């Protein structure tokens, strides 16, 4: 498969999720409206994707959740990726005390268990989603920082780069020609996963009783709510996962590179 067709496919997947978020409400069902006599219905007339354990329309909830999860997950991943990668490059290029300072900072942040970080940030505003994702971003940026710094350090130590330096080519050239292609490749991979991690982390927190406040439809908490019904309504449990899957895979394909 060529690069452009992979990108096209990835873009199509993301567009499908985004379209789902935008067009879902046209179906007309209220994501919060429950019907206790029509719970865990399979897909059918009236409920194209069935209903959940409270008889709420799955299509409406997934669409409403898409706006929350998709948006926040991308935001969290972006909030982690941009500063993380830039600082990583800076540390590798500059070396010396800024590098030591940044490494120290990254280590300090990481030494506080991310779980604790998220749980604590969340405990200040229980039930809100933004702090949840802020906590996730606070934990994730270090990953970008370390990967980009380690990769860049490795690249800078290569003979070709030393040769370029000796030839008098500037930092800009090294950055463009040698660093960026390598770092961007790994960062794009990380980014796709970080977005997925953000959603599944929120799901994991909901699983242990931290996080979402009902009845907000968010993919991660939806899966937690539906887990007890895994035997009766496996489809309802897997639908949010399917959307996360499309998001993660779409990001991956879109971030595809020449060599890929």
């Amino acid at each position: 498969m060529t690069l452009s067709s992979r990108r096209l496919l990835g873009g199509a997947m993301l567009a499908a999720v985004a379209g789902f978020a935008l067009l879902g409400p046209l179906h007309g069902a209220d994501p919060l409206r429950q019907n206790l006599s029509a719970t865990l219905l399979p897909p059918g007339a009236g409920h194209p994707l069935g209903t959940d354990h409270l008889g709420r329309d799955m299509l409406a909830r997934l669409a409403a959740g898409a706006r929350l999860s998709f948006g926040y997950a991308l935001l969290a991943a972006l909030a982690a990726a941009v500063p993380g990668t830039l600082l990583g490059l800076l540390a590798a290029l500059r070396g010396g005390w800024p590098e030591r300072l940044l490494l120290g900072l990254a280590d300090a942040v990481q030494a506080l268990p991310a779980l604790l970080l998220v749980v604590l940030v969340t405990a200040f505003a229980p039930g809100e989603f933004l702090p949840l994702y802020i906590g996730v971003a606070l934990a994730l940026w270090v990953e970008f920082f370390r990967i980009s710094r380690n990769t860049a350090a490795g690249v800078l130590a290569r003979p070709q780069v030393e040769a370029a330096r000796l030839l008098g080519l500037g930092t800009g050239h090294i950055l463009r020609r040698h660093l960026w292609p390598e770092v961007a490749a790994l960062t794009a991979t990380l980014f796709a996963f970080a977005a997925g991690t953000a959603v599944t982390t929120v799901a994991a927190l909901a699983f242990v009783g931290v996080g979402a406040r009902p009845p907000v439809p968010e993919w991660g908490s939806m899966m937690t709510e539906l887990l007890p019904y895994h035997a009766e309504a496996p489809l309802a449990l897997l639908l949010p996962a399917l959307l996360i899957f499309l998001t993660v895979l779409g990001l991956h394909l879109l971030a595809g590179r020449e060599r890929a």
Partner: protein
Amino acid sequence: MPSAPLSRRPLLLAAAGLPVLPRPAAAQPAADLFRVVTSQEINGLDPARSGYVFTRMQVLETLVGADDGGLAVPQLARAWTLSEDRLTWRFALREGARFHDGTPVTAVAVAAALERARGQSGLLGTLPAERIAADDGAVLVRTSRPFAPLLAFLAHYSAGILAPAAFEGQAVREMIGSGPYKVSRLLPPQRLEAARWERWDGPAPAIGRVSYLAAGRGETRAAMAEGGQAELVAQLAPETVERLRRNPRVAVDVRAIPRTRLIKLNCASPLFRDVRARHALSLALDRQGMAAALLRSPASTATQLFPPAMAEWHVPALPPLRRDLPEARRLLAELGWQPGPEGILHREGRPFAFTLRTFSDRPELPGLATAMQAQLREAGIDMAVAVVNSGEIPAGHRDGTLEAALMARNFSLVPDPLGTMLQDYGPEGGDWGAMGWSSPALNGVLERLGAVADPAERAALRGRASAILHEELPVIPVSWFDLATAVSRRVAGLAVDPLELSFRIAGARWAG
């Protein structure tokens, strides 16, 4: 391809394909090991903390036990008498009883263990006991006033009797009980193993070894029952019961127990001060729908506070609680509430809005709260749900910030519900009972109940108490409680204890 077995199997499994290797027999248990799985962790050795694990596993004994109906039966005490003035109880001990360190169970040791338990905060601290002492080989308990529920208090797990060697100062350092099973390995907070105590003075248990595992998730417990990897799985989640009933390996026992899920309201708040507002809230709830869809047990729909399982307190003649939205709206309109923007009721410019606190220690509660949120919304009431630590409910009760809470209340915490009633609906209300509400009539009734011995009068008084709570609704009953237990068909002679005092393994045997 036959579709029946496949459709029973979850989609995940079907998609994963079938392994080709044969099933090994290794998942079968080691011989003569009875495996118990429940949701409750072992949080320490002190009976006040995790006594329920050790009493249910029959490692730790209490002076008296209770039968299915809550009546006291002999345990460490073989018999007891009550003095004429109904203040002094005298317990004669089983002569041959020995602690697991081999020392005999003496009256002195029992009195010391009870005295220490009374000093800990917790249930026993509320006993109106003046003196607990050893007297001529018997244990004497003298109360400051006639106290009928004393036996029930002594049957509580926090009154478990430990050997003198178990203590180091006030702390419990080792679990040395006197029951038919002796701890052989303890891995808190998850696991306990015990084996037959060879010097047990009763009939030797037919089952030699027992183990206890705390598995917090309902799905995990159900899978263990399904896979035949436990002989007894307690506290089955409602949504797993139906599936397990079809499993030929286990017998599922579902029975009503003296526990009720209810909404506690801050009756001092302007929203709920008027009894009509509380009735309106109650009328807006779809109890049947929740019992059927979420609890999978239509019979658990609460029609009054006490379930029929509590025959002495349940009053069949009370008009059942029901759903009637128009009536709820009418009552609210009477109180001056008018529909405002987005259908939310308003009065003097303020919306009918409050926050309900609940917790996830009981996994069904957040789901019920979410369902009620939508139901109240139909009546124009805007209820937010906060899933918090369970401690936030009594804390909110004390500092007055609590507006409403959804919780489950166990009325047989001591086997006699009167103990719980006195805690919950006394003059100042209770952390897990009424808030900002008090009824002189009810107080009078409860006080008489503690002192009167005549059965007919007691029955009349209990009925009166139930009726007052039903009319006043300081708390709104939502559903009664089913205890679902899966017992392996490899086991015979095991009757589930509705009061959850014991797993009764010592009396069971292997089938066939």
